[in-house]
């Protein structure tokens, strides 16, 4: 549940659900997010769920911090309000040219390449949030044996559709972007489709993701 609601400037609520990162807290955040999306409270312009916070932006011409805070505090939560939370399967090609940091990871983690991939592909991952750049999912949790630090010097350009890992998390770079995560492969699937005018993002907060390996040939065929 929400531990505290404070103001983030004069046009947003900052709802604090705790300090740890775990699924239980994040499911609470997403449950509030889904309920608020259905609430039609006047003036809400954006709701941003993250690991353990929920930021609600509003139009200061239409409502205020005090008014909206009261509404959020009195919101009656409908349980299991997560109908859209799906299992999504994402193919990953781990060819050398896409797995930019696999050599570094072998050294850092002291595990061979095959074992890294076996461990990575054996788990399902939960989507804590999407954002930073359009559609980018923040997924977890990784197996402890794969916990790795970020690159000391971030890349200026991480190729679009790269799969990155750091600490307990993995993600997918939906656009070419600067970034410091360890890149282990690339998917031929566009996670954010800027041609689609409804639901352009394949992965939503609360979804479960499983990755599976594909060959270079399969990658090229899918890409066409």
């Amino acid at each position, binding site marked *: 549940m929400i531990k505290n609601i*404070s*103001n*983030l*400037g*004069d*046009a*947003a609520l*900052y709802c*604090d659900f705790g*300090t740890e*990162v775990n699924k239980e807290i994040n499911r609470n955040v997403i449950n509030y*997010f889904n309920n608020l999306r259905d609430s039609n409270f006047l003036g*809400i*312009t*954006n*709701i*941003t*769920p*993250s*690991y*353990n*916070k*929920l*930021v609600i*932006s509003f139009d*200061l*011409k239409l409502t*205020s*911090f005090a008014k909206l805070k009261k509404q959020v505090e009195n919101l009656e939560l409908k349980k299991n309000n997560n109908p859209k939370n799906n299992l999504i399967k994402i193919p990953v090609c781990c060819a050398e040219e896409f797995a930019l940091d696999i050599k570094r990871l072998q050294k850092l983690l002291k595990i061979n390449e095959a074992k890294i991939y076996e461990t990575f592909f054996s788990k399902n991952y939960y989507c804590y*949030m*999407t*954002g*930073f*750049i*359009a*559609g*980018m999912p*923040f997924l977890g949790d990784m197996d402890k044996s794969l916990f790795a630090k970020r690159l000391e010097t971030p890349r200026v350009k991480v190729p679009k559709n790269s799969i990155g890992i750091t600490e307990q998390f993995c993600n997918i770079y*939906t*656009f070419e972007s600067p970034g410091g995560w360890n890149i282990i492969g690339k998917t031929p699937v566009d996670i*954010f489709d*800027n041609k689609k*005018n409804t639901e*352009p*993002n394949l992965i*939503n*907060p609360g979804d479960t993701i499983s990755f599976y390996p594909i060959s270079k040939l399969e990658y090229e065929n899918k890409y066409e």
Partner: protein
Amino acid sequence: MNKNYFKVLRPGINSTFQDNGRNNFYHIGIPFSGAMDNRNFILANTISNNEINNPVLEFAYQGPKLKYIGENISINVTGDVNFKIIRKNKNLELSCYENIILENNDCLDILSTNRSVYGYLSIGGTFEVDYYLNSCSTNTKAKIGANSGEKLEKGQIIHLKNIKKILPKNKIEYLNSKIENIRIIKGPHFDYFSKDAIDSFLSDEFNVTKLSDRMGIRLKGPKISNIKNTNIKSEGLVKGVIQITADGDPIIMLSDHGTIGGYPKIGVVISADYDKLVQIPPGSKIKFKEINLKDAETIFKLYEMETQNLISNFK
């Protein structure tokens, strides 16, 4: 069909189509975008007698040079902008905030914004642009919105539609005042910083650097040192949030900002100062002043009344 159009002879530095922006997509990583200086955007559409959310052409520093082909049309420019019309080899010097008639074969040359950043071109009619998720605002990072999510390019054609009859030559008397003191409200990580760091943050000057654009303003000044942690678990951001990077430099998030971030938030710029904040060009110095929420709300009401007065006096 499309007999009225502009041809782009020079695109300018960062010319994009914008409207009021895109709501309710932060959770998938898509920021508001929209015109940076909302008041000047509203005034542009007011003078053109358009719907308040009609697309405008926003430009920064140096604007575009546009050749016009078509029937006579009313246009206006808002902001603090130096521009002219070249008609049959003669230069017509013009002023902002009034309707001007553009004739066939005229060349509209938007030379520069004066000691400010953004200006707006509006027409008595509508730029024919693509919409994406209920807004035409171009976001060049996600490549969405008008012009396939790109800045204007040299040689391209901008089609116009719904051209209105020539509008009366009315003018809004408005002076863009500049500010150096930016008013802020404490952020959720205010206590990550020592008393000395906060004193310095609220009393020293900061330089607006060249690394400033529609996503954010990067500042250089005294280092704001952190006594807790230079990183937090990533969480939602809003327009005007001031994050302190691991290097101790403040960065203010603007309309095209990344939707989540992992640096501590020392403060948030009040809504009433946002339009003026975005207009501060690189090379300027700014200072922060802390106020409380109640005062920020009152100041916003006054700012909004001022905007409404400008609109109603014009009509």
